[in-house]
C-alpha cells in the first residue's frame, strides 16, 4: 500500500515582492522529502471554527535547498487563499501543506537534450524551479536552454532581475520576453502574444531535440503546444500545465 502524502506544518521564513501583485513565500519544512522541479504542493488554511480551504501552488525553488520551499503566488482579487497570503500572512506564521505532487510536468538535469520553456504570467513559477535547478548543476552538465516568457506589462515580469542574471551567466540559457499590453520606451523584446513565428524563432537556437514545458493560461498553452508539434517536436516531448478559464 502507498502511504498517504502527509500534511506538514510549514513556517513562513521570508516574503518577497516579485511584482505589484505577485509575492514569493519562503517556507521552512524541516521534514520535507524534497521534490522535482515542476511539482506542486497543496496548501490548506483552516479558520478557528474549522472552516477550511485548499489550493494547489507550483513550487518555485530548486530541490537542492533542503527543508526550504519557495511558493510564488499571484494575488487573485476574489481569491480566498491568495488574498490571505498576500494581505494577512506574515513571517513566522505556520501553514499546512502537503506534497510534492505531480509526476509528469517535471524536469531534472538527468534528462538528456536541451530544455525549452514557454511561460505566460505566473505560469513561469514551475519553470523557474527547473531553471534554478539547472543553474545549480555543474556547468558542464547544464543543457542548452531557452525561456520564452509572455507578460502583459514590464512591471509585471516575475523574476525579471533573476532571469536577467541567469541569462547573463553565459552558460547556454537564453531568455526572451514578450509584452502583450504595454512596452516601456526602448523595449527590445517581442511586443505581441506568443505565436508560431515567435516560437519558431526561439526554438531554433535551442534545438528541435528539446524537451518543451509550457505553463500559462489555456489560450497560450493551446497555441504554443499545437505550434511546437507543427514545428516538429514529438507530442510526448511537449508537456503542459494550464490555469485560468478556457476562454470558450
Amino acid at each position, binding site marked *: 500500500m502507498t502511504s498517504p502524502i502527509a500534511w506538514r506544518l510549514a513556517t513562513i521564513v521570508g516574503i518577497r515582492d516579485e511584482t505589484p501583485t505577485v509575492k514569493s513565500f519562503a517556507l521552512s519544512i524541516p521534514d520535507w522529502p524534497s521534490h522535482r522541479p515542476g511539482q506542486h504542493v497543496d496548501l490548506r488554511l483552516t479558520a478557528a471554527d474549522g472552516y477550511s480551504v485548499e489550493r494547489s501552488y507550483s513550487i518555485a525553488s530548486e530541490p537542492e535547498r533542503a527543508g526550504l520551499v519557495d511558493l510564488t503566488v499571484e494575488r487573485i482579487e476574489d481569491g480566498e487563499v491568495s488574498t490571505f497570503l498576500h494581505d494577512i500572512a506574515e513571517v513566522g506564521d*505556520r*501553514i499546512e501543506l502537503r506534497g510534492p505532487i*505531480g509526476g509528469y510536468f517535471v524536469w531534472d538535469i538527468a534528462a538528456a537534450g536541451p530544455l525549452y520553456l514557454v511561460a505566460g504570467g505566473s505560469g513561469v513559477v514551475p519553470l523557474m524551479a527547473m531553471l534554478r535547478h539547472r543553474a545549480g548543476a555543474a556547468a558542464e552538465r547544464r543543457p542548452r536552454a531557452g525561456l520564452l516568457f509572455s507578460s502583459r506589462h514590464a512591471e509585471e515580469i516575475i523574476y525579471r532581475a533573476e532571469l536577467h542574471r541567469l541569462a547573463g551567466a553565459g552558460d547556454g540559457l537564453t531568455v526572451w520576453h514578450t509584452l502583450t499590453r504595454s512596452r516601456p520606451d526602448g523595449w527590445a523584446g517581442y511586443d505581441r502574444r506568443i505565436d508560431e513565428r515567435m516560437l519558431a524563432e526561439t526554438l531554433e537556437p535551442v534545438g528541435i531535440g528539446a524537451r518543451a514545458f509550457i505553463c500559462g493560461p489555456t489560450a497560450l498553452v493551446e497555441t504554443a503546444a499545437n505550434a511546437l508539434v507543427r514545428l516538429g517536436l514529438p507530442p510526448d516531448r*511537449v508537456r503542459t500545465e*494550464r490555469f485560468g*478559464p*478556457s476562454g470558450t
Partner: protein
Amino acid sequence: MVDRFVTRGFTGRRDRGGGTADAARRTPPGQYLTTDFPVLSAGPTPRTPLDRWTFTIEGLVREPVTWSWDAFRALPARDWTVDISCVTKWTKLDMRWRGVSVDTLLEGVELGDRAAFVIAWSDGDYTTNLPLGDVLNGAAFVAWEYDGRPLSPEHGGPARLVVPARYFWKSAKWIRGLRITDRDEPGFWESLGYHNRGDQWLEERYGGD
C-alpha cells in the same frame, strides 16, 4: 474530522457554493466552486479527423465492436446534467452534456466471465482505469456535446468519457475506446502518484489517500 492546524488570521470568505446551502452540500471536501470550465491536460491537444475517428470496445469481450463517428452518433443518446470535480480543486455544478451511456455501448458486446475492469484509452496515449462497477448503471457516458455545442478539442472533443462520481481525470478526453480486463491496470495519472479510484467525496486525490 482529523486535527487541523488553525491558521492565524484566516477567517475565509464563506462564499463557497455562492452562499447557497444546496451548492455547499454539492461541493466535495477541499473543493471550491467555479463557473469557468478550466482546461487541464498533460500535453498537446490531439486532433483526429472525424472520417478516421472510431470507437472500439475490446479486451474481454466475445467480439470486439468498432463504430465510425456517424455510427457512434446514431447510438441512443440523452442529455445529462451533472456536477464535476477536478483534483486541481475546482467543482462546477450542473454541467450539461449530451452523449451515450456506457451501458448502451456495452449492449453492443458480450462481456467475458472475468470482465471486472475497464481501461479508457484516448488519442495522445492517455489511459485511465476504472472498475466496471464505476461505469455501469448510468454512472458514465461518452459525450460529444457540452452546453448545447459540439465538444471543443481542448475540452476533449470530438468525444470524451464523463464519470461524474470520480475526479475529472477519470473522464478521459479524446476517448477512442474501452478495453475490458480482468485485472486492474493503473492508467496515466494513476501511475504518476494520483489515486487509483479517485472518489471526490472521500478526497481520494493521491496514492495512499
